[in-house]
């Protein structure tokens, strides 16, 4: 992430593009790779991502009826970190195509995780900020990868503490299988069968220097323990 300096807090409401020179980056984010990691395949490039988000935006608008005032009856909640940027994209697309304003919130589930005792040190707590009233609202949780389902489980607990939504739906870019809880996504960008030692990495241009989805092989499976 770019906020390595603790003084700088990255706000989701900050519109500045973080990378303008995507084309100069031939190699996808090698700077963020562990030496033993190898890229098995690129699953989606930035154009695929864009189309996929367009499609899911259509599905969202179709799924939720407009309220009496002709406004949108649902709110988007992006899960830290990349889910936030994906939710923001969806918000922009719906504004551009349908001229509808969708409210957007940010959710960090660190305080609700169940693997607290399995970690060496504590993960950084990020911002939670939902400015609209969640009571009686239809909410769509947005995240990048659905794997064990534990993060969404934590997200549901977090939402429950913030109010009583009318319903909660779940949108995800990649579903890679291997669920450990009875959880499914309502809107799925792409289903990808994977092996436990692999990792699906979604990268967004706002945060990373690349955009797309990659399948990465971990030489060392044990590093995946904290990966939910």
């Amino acid at each position, binding site marked *: *992430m770019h906020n*390595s300096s*603790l*003084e700088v*807090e990255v706000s989701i409401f900050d519109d500045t593009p973080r990378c303008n020179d995507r084309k100069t980056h031939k190699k996808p*984010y090698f*700077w*963020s*790779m*562990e030496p033993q*990691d190898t890229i098995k395949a690129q699953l989606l490039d930035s154009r695929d991502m864009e189309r996929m988000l367009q499609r899911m935006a259509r599905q969202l608008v179709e799924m939720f009826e407009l309220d009496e005032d002709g406004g949108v009856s649902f709110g988007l909640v992006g*899960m*830290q*970190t*990349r*889910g936030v940027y994906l939710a923001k994209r969806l918000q922009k697309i719906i504004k551009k195509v349908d001229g509808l304003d969708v409210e957007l919130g940010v959710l*960090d589930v*660190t*305080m*609700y995780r169940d693997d*607290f*005792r*399995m*970690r*060496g*040190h*504590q*993960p*950084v*707590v*990020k*911002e*939670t*900020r939902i400015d609209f009233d969640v009571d009686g609202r239809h909410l769509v949780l947005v*995240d*990048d*990868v*659905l*794997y064990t389902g534990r*993060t*969404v489980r934590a997200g549901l*607990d977090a939402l429950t*503490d*913030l*109010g009583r939504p009318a319903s909660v739906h779940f949108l995800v870019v990649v579903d890679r299988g291997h669920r450990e809880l009875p959880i499914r996504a309502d809107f799925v960008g792409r289903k990808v069968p994977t092996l436990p030692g692999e*990792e*699906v*990495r*979604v990268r967004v241009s706002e945060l*990373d220097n690349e955009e797309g989805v990659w399948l*990465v092989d*971990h030489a060392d499976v044990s*590093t*995946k323990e*904290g*990966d*939910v």
Partner: protein
Amino acid sequence: MSEISTPAAGQEASPSLKHRHLLGLETYSADEIGLILQTARQFREVLDRPIKRVPTLRGVTVVNLFFEPSTRTRISFELAEKRLSADTVNFSASGSSVSKGESLKDTAQNIEAMKIDMVVLRHVSPGAPHFLTKCVDSIVINAGDGAHEHPTQALLDMLTITDHCGALTGLNVSIIGDVLHSRVARSNIHGLLAMGAHVTICGPNPLLPLHLEEMSPNGRVRVTHRLEEALEGADIAMALRIQMERQGRNLFPSTREYHEQYGIKTEHLERYPALRVMHPGPVNRGVELASEVVDHERAVILNQVTNGVAVRMAVLYLLSGSSVTE
């Protein structure tokens, strides 16, 4: 979801505390203090919710060992623990085995034998928390040891300062009053210097310790005996409580004369329109601060109290991670 935490995804070496305990801010780096403050800002949001509780520290047992009377700090720690769903046990010296002559070491080891994870210690003797780390395996948090340090108070002070004045680097903070007996002042000086602020110490000579200026090699600590000099150009004036109970002998003639010379009054707030006033509490109205100053909108004393809970939540959360590795 995967990448946030996986080390293999690591563009960021996820920041963490290097320390296992919080004994004082003297050894804490700017990065560590910054991490605590950043985390505290996120926890503060929990305090504004209708349900002011998160399950983060479920199953963690914290003992509040208070060998000295305390209202604010003890309640603040207890609330912080409860907001994080930790199990808490309170211990106060009066009416306990301590009055039967049991030593700190024995008391702590006995309580630890009942399987606890963290100890919050308030003690009259400087260094008591350091000693405790040698006799128990639990994580120790210093809630004030004699006139040595009170790190969580300094952290909440710094959080309050950043709320009102932005980044600490280059800010001018004046600490006024009984510095000699003040653990709050010591922790604040260490913390503020680490964060790059300039510190002015002000008070009557008998209430100032020696060699204060030597705490900063590059002259960021200034000592003055005149209140006007301390307030001129200051962003924050931090008044310290005159600790009547710690004064064996009279170090100044009377509280009235102290107020004349060193008390912050309404006229000071008028003369310095950007100045904000802080106080670690409990306030002696009409001594360190004029009564009208305490109630003034630029006195941020109650913000300090709110931030106290958030900072203590952050400290408990960040330190509790180290119980796993060791």
